[in-house]
């Protein structure tokens, strides 16, 4: 599972990296005379409203969507895990503040909060990452805090502390290795949500801005043509689903690993 998932995501990312070698058209080059062409030997997936090669845009999209989904997962994960550890291990006042903050964040529906934050920061990829960091840390903080709290009372941690091992060492050598497998599983399933969120925001014209070949944006560009050139919207969505399934498989693999311990 883990290997299959990682290969899917890795392969798509690699295709994105090699996109300039794999395609013969510039993803941004417009050709108004050749707009809305049907799939052919030259344009494998036809051209869009502005006459840009859809196949080339699809492959180049992997350079935007996959890394951005990963970054939008990593940043909140680091923040959330840190806050979760501080909350659970050192506790008390910090714990109260962090958990109330988490309550407030969770009072907002995710997409409402995303749209409001992006509104505040202005549309774009950077705003998306910042907004994700503001929202998604909560899940990690809650997960890690709960794990740390339950591990804290376990014999091996108590024994380590009784043996006079310093707090930092107990944390690094005994606590974290037992928490991280769950965090990895959570990260992989969070990556699915980040990927979909990026595409959704771009679809609403609040994410990655044109003319970048972002998948959600490409779906939006094709919406007015679904009566005739339906593939313009259908194909980029398929790319999102494939990468999403890849991340899901990784999550599933990590979950099984964590359960086996």
């Amino acid at each position, binding site marked *: 599972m883990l290997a299959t998932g990682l290969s899917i995501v890795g392969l798509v990312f690699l295709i994105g990296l090699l996109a300039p070698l794999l395609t013969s058209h510039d993803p941004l080059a417009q050709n108004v005379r050749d707009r809305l062409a049907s799939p052919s030997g030259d344009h494998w997936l036809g051209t869009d409203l502005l006459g840009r090669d859809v196949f080339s845009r699809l492959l180049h999209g992997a350079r935007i969507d996959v890394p951005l989904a990963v970054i939008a997962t990593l940043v909140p994960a680091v923040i959330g895990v840190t806050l979760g550890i501080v909350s659970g291990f050192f506790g008390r006042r910090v714990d109260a503040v962090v958990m*109330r903050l988490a*309550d*407030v964040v*969770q*009072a*907002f*529906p*995710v*997409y*409402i*909060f995303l*749209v*409001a934050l*992006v*509104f*505040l920061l*202005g549309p774009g990829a950077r705003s998306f990452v910042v907004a994700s960091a503001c929202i998604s840390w909560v899940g990690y903080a809650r997960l890690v805090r709960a794990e740390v709290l339950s591990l804290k009372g376990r014999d091996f941690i108590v024994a380590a502390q009784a043996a006079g091992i310093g707090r930092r060492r107990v944390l690094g050598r005994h606590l974290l290795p037992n928490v991280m497998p769950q965090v990895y599983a959570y990260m992989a*399933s969070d990556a*699915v*949500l980040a*990927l*979909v969120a990026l*595409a*959704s925001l771009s*679809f*609403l*014209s*609040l994410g990655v801005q044109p003319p970048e070949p972002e998948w*959600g944006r490409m*779906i939006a560009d094709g*919406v007015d043509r*679904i*009566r005739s050139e*339906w593939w313009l*919207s*259908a194909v980029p*969505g398929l790319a*999102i*689903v494939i*990468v*999403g*399934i890849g*991340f*899901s498989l990784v*999550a*599933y693999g990590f979950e099984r690993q964590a359960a086996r311990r």
Partner: protein
Amino acid sequence: MLQFVARRSLQGLAVLLVVLVASFALLKFVPGDPARQVAGPRATEEQVESIREDLGLNDNVGVQMWRYLGRLVQGDFGSTTNGASEVADLIRQNLPVTLWLVSTSLFVTAIVSLGLALLAVRRPGRLIDRLVVVTGSVGLAVPSFWLGIVLLIVVARPTGWFPIGGWGESFGERVRAIVLPCVTLTASLVPVTTRSLRTSMLKVRRSEYVAAGRSVGLTGISLFWHFVLRNSLVPTVALFASLAGMVLSGTVLVEATFALPGLGQMMVVGAINRDVNVIQGLTVVFATGVILFNVVGDIVVAWLDPRIERR
């Protein structure tokens, strides 16, 4: 019980207050000078200053916040940036569409996910169960707006039964307009609800009272109905209460995809037009909805299962 209701309501109010303050802060962080925006680009410095005074922007921040909260309590969210209409009126106009979408989708989601979970749980680990688990994780990777578009391509376009988007005038038109959005929203919820229901039903199925029921000779349907289903009710209600945020998130995308004139679409249009009052008002309305949903859900759960009160 009464004590629990009071405590839970107070907690909800506390979170709401913080949310309101946060929404006020939103206004303060928006780049640009609101007075200059109202005055227009050609206004003189004096005109801008007098508007700033009129809007009360020269007052102490605490005073401004107090005034803002006072306006909210009266249901006054200010007017749209172009001054054409009141935000509260717009919300009132757009609310029914969203309520329609949310209520029908929740209803269908409940039926579909209960059915699927029951099918899966009857024989854990077998074909149907696995199918349910796999579809669940694939479902999460499907962007709901894209699913909506695919439905338009493969259902609405060839059959002509449903409009390609938009709302209708008559009741019949509206029913037809809501079908595909409802299916889309349901499809984005079902993977989550089915998965969670399946887990809680498996837990019930393995519990001692089900074993007891089996030992007195109950089998099949009656065991399921009286023991498994009954006891799965509490986690089901709890699950749906916790779903509010997800459902409202879903309406933003689904309404935008199907061009439905609801609150979600209003939010997106407001963000694109950079309309502070619209975003602020809707943020407050949505957050209030979620908090209300959660509080009521918790109370219903506590009423169904008195043990929870004491936790």
